[in-house]
C-alpha cells in the first residue's frame, strides 16, 4: 500500500514530463492524457483513503522512503513521504478538485493553441503540490513549495503575450521569493538546532529548544506562509495573479496552493505551541488579512479580483484559527477544505460567465445573466450561499467554529478576535451579494467587446458545467457531513492537537450573531446594488472605496518602501560595477593584453633565437641550482 504514495505523485509528474517532452504530436489528445493521469492520481488517493479508514486512529499513518537524496555525514536528506490524516485530507482535496478542474479546462481552453502546455503545467502543479503535502521532512516540503511556485509562475503568465500577465507572473514570483527565503531560513535554523529537518524528530523535540529559537523559526515559517498564502504584508501578488486563465485561479489561487501556508503552520504546530509570541503574530496577520481582503473584495469591479479579495480574506480566517493553537487547528483545516470546494466552484462559475461574455471581467457590464446561464447561476448561487454562511451549508459550519474558537481565546483578545471574525462575516455577505447581484440580477449592461462583437451569453459546455455541479454539491454538503458526529475532528485528532475552547458565549449565540450579521451584509448590498440601477462607470466613492479599489494602496506602499529604494540601490550598484569593478577588470585585461603583445614578440620565428633562449634557460637553471646549494 505504501508504494501507492509514490505513484500518487508519479502519475501527474509523468504527465507533465510526457507532455512537455512529447511536443506537438501530443496536441490532439494531450489534455485527455493529463486529465486521465489526474483522475488516476485521485483513484490512488481514494484507495489509500479507504485503506486508511480500515485501520485504527493511531496506526493510520503510512510512510514511504524512496531514496536517500543527500547523504552527507550528519546531513541526511531523504526523498520520503508520509501519509497521515492531515496529508490525506489535502491529497483528497488536491486530487479531487484538481481532476475536476482538469476536466473543466478541456472546455475552457479548447481554442487555445498552447493547450497541451497548459495541461502539462497543471499536471506539474499537481505533482508539486502532492510532494508539498506528502513530504516527511521540511527539505522535501521545500521542493514541493518551490515546485508549486514555479507552476504558479508559469500559469499566471500563461498568456505571456499580454504584458499584464507577464508582469503579474513576475510579481507573484518575486513576492513569493521573499516568503521562500523565510522557509529556507527556518530550515537552516531547524538544522542548526535539531540537526535534522524530518518532521518526526524536529516536532518531537521542539519542546527542548529555547523559546527564542522556536519564536525565530515560527516567525520565519509565518513569513513563508504569508508569501504563499497571500497574507498581509505579502498579499500584493494575489490580485494580479488573476491574469492567469480562470481554471488556474480556481485550482491554484483559491483552492489549493494558496492554502499551503495554512498547512505549513498547522503541520509545524509543535513549534508554534512553544512560541506564544509567534502565535500572536500569526493571529494578528490572520485578523488583518481577513479584514483587508474583505474590504478589497467589496470595492473591486473585476469579478475575479473581487473573488481574489475574498480568497485572501477566507485564508485570513484560517490563519487566524491556526494562530489560536489546538483550539483552532482542526477548524482551520476544515474551513480550508470547505473553502476549497466553494471557492473553486465560484471561480469556475466566474470562468463560465466570462466564457459566455467574450472574456469580459467587469461586473458592471454583466447583469441579468441568470436567465441565460441557468446552470452557472444555480451552481454559483449555491457556492455563494455556502461562503456567506447560510445556515446548514458548508461555510456555516466551518466559519462558525472559527468564530467560536476566536471568542474562546479568552480575555480581551477573545472579544477583539471574535468581533473581527463576526465583522468579517458581515463583509463576506456584503461583497458576495454584490457579486451575485451585479452578475446575475438587474438590468443587462452588456457592451460590445474590443472587436465590436455583441455578447451572446450562453451556457457553457458539459465539460465545464459538470465540474461546477460536482463542486456545488460539495459546497452544500461538505460542512454538514464534516460536522456530523464530529466526523472531521475525530478524523484529524490523532495527528493534529485539539482542545475544547472555553468561550464566554455559547455555540448557539455565535451562530445567531453570525447569521444576523450575514443578513445585515446581504441587506446592505441589496440596498446599494439590488434596489437601485447600477451605474456603468463606478462612482468616485469615498476615500475608503477609492483606497480599496487600489488594493488599500498596497502597491503604492510597496513601491515607496521597497521598489524606489531598491531602484536607487541597484543604480548605485550598477554605477559602482561600471566604474569600479569593470574598471579594475578591464584594466587588468588591458594590462595582460599589452603584456601578451610584448611577450609574443619574443617568438620571432628564428631557430637561432629559440636556441639562445634555451641556452640562457639552461644557464639560469644551472646557476640557480648551484646558488641554492651555496646559500
Amino acid at each position, binding site marked *: 500500500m505504501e508504494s501507492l504514495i509514490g505513484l500518487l505523485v508519479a502519475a501527474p509528474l509523468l504527465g507533465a514530463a510526457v507532455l512537455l517532452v512529447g511536443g506537438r504530436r501530443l496536441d490532439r489528445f494531450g489534455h485527455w492524457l493529463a486529465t486521465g493521469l489526474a483522475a488516476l492520481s485521485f483513484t490512488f488517493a481514494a484507495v489509500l483513503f479507504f485503506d486508511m479508514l480500515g485501520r485504527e486512529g493511531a496506526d493510520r499513518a503510512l510512510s514511504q522512503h524512496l531514496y536517500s537524496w543527500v547523504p552527507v555525514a550528519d546531513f541526511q536528506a531523504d526523498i520520503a513521504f508520509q501519509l497521515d490524516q492531515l496529508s490525506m485530507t489535502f491529497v483528497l482535496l488536491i486530487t479531487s478538485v484538481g481532476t475536476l478542474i482538469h476536466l473543466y479546462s478541456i472546455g475552457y481552453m479548447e481554442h487555445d493553441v498552447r493547450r497541451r502546455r497548459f495541461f502539462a503545467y497543471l499536471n506539474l502543479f499537481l505533482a508539486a503540490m502532492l510532494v508539498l503535502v506528502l513530504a516527511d521532512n521540511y527539505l522535501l516540503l521545500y521542493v514541493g513549495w518551490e515546485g508549486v511556485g514555479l507552476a504558479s509562475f508559469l500559469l499566471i503568465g500563461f498568456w505571456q503575450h499580454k504584458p499584464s500577465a507577464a508582469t503579474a507572473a513576475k510579481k507573484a514570483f518575486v513576492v513569493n521569493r521573499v516568503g521562500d527565503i523565510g522557509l529556507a531560513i527556518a530550515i537552516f535554523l531547524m538544522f542548526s538546532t535539531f540537526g535534522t529537518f524530518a518532521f518526526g524528530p524536529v516536532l518531537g523535540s521542539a519542546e527542548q529548544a529555547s523559546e527564542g529559537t522556536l519564536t525565530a523559526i515560527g516567525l520565519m515559517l509565518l513569513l513563508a506562509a504569508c508569501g504563499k498564502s497571500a497574507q498581509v504584508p505579502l498579499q500584493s501578488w494575489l490580485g494580479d495573479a488573476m491574469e492567469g486563465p480562470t481554471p488556474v485561479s480556481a485550482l491554484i489561487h483559491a483552492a489549493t496552493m494558496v492554502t499551503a501556508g495554512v498547512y505549513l503552520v498547522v503541520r509545524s504546530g509543535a513549534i508554534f505551541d512553544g512560541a506564544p509570541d509567534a502565535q500572536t503574530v500569526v493571529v494578528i496577520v490572520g485578523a488583518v488579512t481577513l479584514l483587508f481582503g474583505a474590504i478589497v473584495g467589496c470595492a473591486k469591479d473585476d469579478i475575479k479580483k473581487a473573488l481574489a479579495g475574498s480568497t485572501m480574506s477566507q485564508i485570513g480566517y484560517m490563519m487566524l484559527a491556526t494562530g489560536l493553537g489546538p483550539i483552532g487547528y482542526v477548524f482551520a483545516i476544515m474551513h480550508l477544505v470547505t473553502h476549497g470546494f466553494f471557492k473553486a466552484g465560484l471561480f469556475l462559475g466566474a470562468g463560465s460567465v466570462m466564457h459566455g461574455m467574450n472574456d469580459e471581467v467587469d461586473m458592471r457590464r454583466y447583469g441579468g445573466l441568470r436567465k441565460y446561464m441557468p446552470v452557472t447561476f444555480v451552481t454559483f448561487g449555491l457556492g455563494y450561499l455556502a461562503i456567506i454562511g447560510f445556515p446548514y451549508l458548508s461555510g456555516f459550519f466551518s466559519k462558525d467554529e472559527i468564530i467560536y474558537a476566536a471568542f474562546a481565546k479568552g480575555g480581551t483578545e477573545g472579544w477583539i478576535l471574535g468581533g473581527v471574525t463576526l465583522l468579517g462575516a458581515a463583509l463576506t455577505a456584503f461583497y458576495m451579494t454584490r457579486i451575485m447581484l451585479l452578475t446575475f440580477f438587474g438590468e443587462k449592461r452588456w457592451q460590445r467587446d474590443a472587436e465590436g462583437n455583441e455578447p451572446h451569453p450562453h451556457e457553457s459546455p458539459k465539460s465545464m458545467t459538470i465540474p461546477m455541479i460536482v463542486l456545488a454539491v460539495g459546497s452544500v454538503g461538505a460542512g454538514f457531513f464534516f460536522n456530523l458526529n464530529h466526523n472531521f475532528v475525530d478524523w484529524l485528532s490523532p495527528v493534529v492537537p485539539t482542545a475544547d475552547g472555553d468561550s464566554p458565549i455559547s455555540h448557539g449565540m455565535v451562530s445567531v450573531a453570525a447569521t444576523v450579521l450575514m443578513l445585515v451584509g446581504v441587506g446592505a448590498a441589496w440596498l446599494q446594488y439590488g434596489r437601485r440601477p447600477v451605474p456603468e462607470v463606478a462612482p468616485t466613492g469615498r476615500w475608503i472605496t477609492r483606497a480599496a479599489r487600489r488594493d488599500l494602496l498596497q502597491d503604492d506602499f510597496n513601491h515607496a518602501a521597497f521598489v524606489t529604494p531598491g531602484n536607487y540601490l541597484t543604480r548605485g550598484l550598477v554605477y559602482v560595477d561600471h566604474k569600479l569593478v569593470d574598471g579594475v577588470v578591464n584594466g587588468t*585585461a588591458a594590462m*595582460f*593584453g599589452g*603584456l*601578451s*603583445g610584448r*611577450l*609574443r614578440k*619574443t*617568438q620571432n*620565428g628564428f*631557430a637561432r*633565437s*629559440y*636556441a639562445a*633562449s*634555451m641556452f*640562457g*634557460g*639552461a644557464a*639560469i*637553471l*644551472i646557476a*640557480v*641550482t*648551484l646558488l*641554492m*646549494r651555496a646559500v
Partner: protein
Amino acid sequence: MNSWTHAQGVLETPQFEWVALSPTLIVVGAAVLGVLIEAFAPRRYRYGSQVVLAVLALAVAFAAVVGLAANGHAGAEAQIAGMGALAVDGPTLFLQGVLLLIGFVSVFLFAERRLEPAEHGRAVDSFAAQAAATPGGTAEKLAVRSGYTTTEIFPLMLFALGGMLLFPAANDLLILFIALEVLSLPLYLLCALARRRRLLSQEAAVKYFLLGAFASAFLLFGIALLYGYAGTLSYAGIADVISGAPSSQVDPGLAATMGNDAYLLIGGALVIMGLLFKVGAVPFHMWTPDVYQGAPTPVTGFMAAATKVAAFGALLRLLYVTLPGMRWDWEPVLWGVAIASMLAGAVIAITQTDVKRLLAYSSIAHAGFILAGVVAVSPEGVSSVLFYLAAYSFVTLGAFAVITLVRDGDGEATHLSKWAGLGRRSPLLAGVFALFLLAFAGIPLTSGFAGKFAVFRAAADSGAMPLVIVGVIASAIAAFFYVRVIVLMFFSEPQPGGPSVVVPSLMTTSMLGVSVVATVVLGVAPQYFLDLAGQAGVFVR
C-alpha cells in the same frame, strides 16, 4: 646494478623479461613489420594493411598492459626488467596504457581520408603525396597525379610510440637517452609531411629537429656529468651515491670526479632541462607554437598528447627515483619553471589569432600546471600528475581532431576570424569544441577540472601554496581566451565565404566520440580513475 654498463670485458648473456616488456616489444615489432610492408607490399595494399596492423598491434599491446597490471605488476609484482634498464611498475603501466590509447585513437586520425578532396579519383589523407618531392615542383605534381600517399606515417608513428613507451619506463640514463631519440626522430619526420602548406610544415620539422638536437646535446652532457659523479648510469645507483652509500665498484678513472657535488648539480640540471624541453616548459618552449602550427594537424594532436605524457613520465621517475636526494636543489628551479610556464603560456595565448598556435600556448600553460603536481613530491603528486596527463591527452586529441574538420578551399581554416559564427552553422561540432575548451579551462564537470583540482590539491598539501595561487591566476587568464573562442563561435555573425565543416568518416567521428566521453566521464565521475592513478603512484627502485 646495471650489468650493461659494468660488463668489464665479458659480455654476459642478457636476461630478458619478455612478458614484462611485451607492450613495447609488440609496438616496435609492428613498426618493423610496417617497414617491411612499405618495402614489399604493392602500393594499393599498403594503406589497408598498415592501418589494420597498427590498430591490431596497439590493441594487443594495450591488452598486454592490462594483463600485466592485473597480474600485480603495477603494485606488489613491480620489477626492474631488462637487466636494470627498465622499470615495470605502476606509473610505467599507467602511462603506457594511456599512451597506447592515445596511439589507438591517433591511428584513426592519421588514417582519415574523407577530409581532403579526392585527387584524381583517389581518396587522400592529410599527408604529403611524396615527402621527398620539392614543394610546388614537378615531382610533387606527378606524385599527386599518381595518387601517391605516404603510408610510412604508420610505422613512423609506431616507432615514435615505441620510444614513448620506453621513456617513462627508463631506469637508466642511457636508456633514457635512447628512448628520447627513438621517440623524437620519427616525430621530426612526421612534422614535415603535411599535404597542404608544405613549406611551413618543413620549416617546422627543421626547427624541431635543430632545437631537439640541441636539447639532446644538453641532456647527453648532463648524463656524462652524472656518470662522472656516480660512476653508474642506473637510477638507483645514482640515488645511492647521492644518499651517501659507498659505491661497490669504483672506477679508478673516475676517482677525481666521483662524489663531487658540482657534477651532480650541473648534470642533474642539464638532464632536467632536456626533459623540460620535451614537455615544452618555459624557457624551453619556443619550438612549440611553430611546430604545432606547421605539423599536419593529426600529428600535432598525437605529438601534443603523447609526447607530454611520455616526457612527464620520464621526468617523474628521474626526480622521484634518482634525484630525491637533491630535492632541495631542484625544487626551487622547478617552481620557477612552473610559474613561468603557467603565466607565459596563458598571457601570450591571449593575443594569438591561429587556433593551432593558441592551443600550443595553452599546452605550455598546462605543462606549468602539471609541473605544480610534479613539484609536490608526494604519492598524491604522482597520482595527480598521472590523472592530469590522461585527462589532458584526450582533450588535446579531441581539440585537434575538431581543427582537422573545419576547412575552406586552402585546407584547414585555422585563423580564428574564420571560426566566427561556427556555432550557428555547425552547432554540434562547435559544441564539442566548446566542451574541449571548457575542459582546457578547467570548468567543473569536465576532466580538466578534476585534473587541475588534483594537482593543485597535491601542491597545496605539500606546502606549495604560492604555486597554487599563481596557478589559479593563470587559469583565470587562460579562461579568457578559451571562452573568447566560444563567444566567437556562438555569438558572432558567420562570415560570408567562411569555412565549412567536413563530414568525416566513422574513424574521426568515433575518435571524437571517445574524446568527448573521456572528457565528460573523467569530469563527472573522476573518482574511479583517481583511485586507479593513486594505486599506480609508487615507483619501483
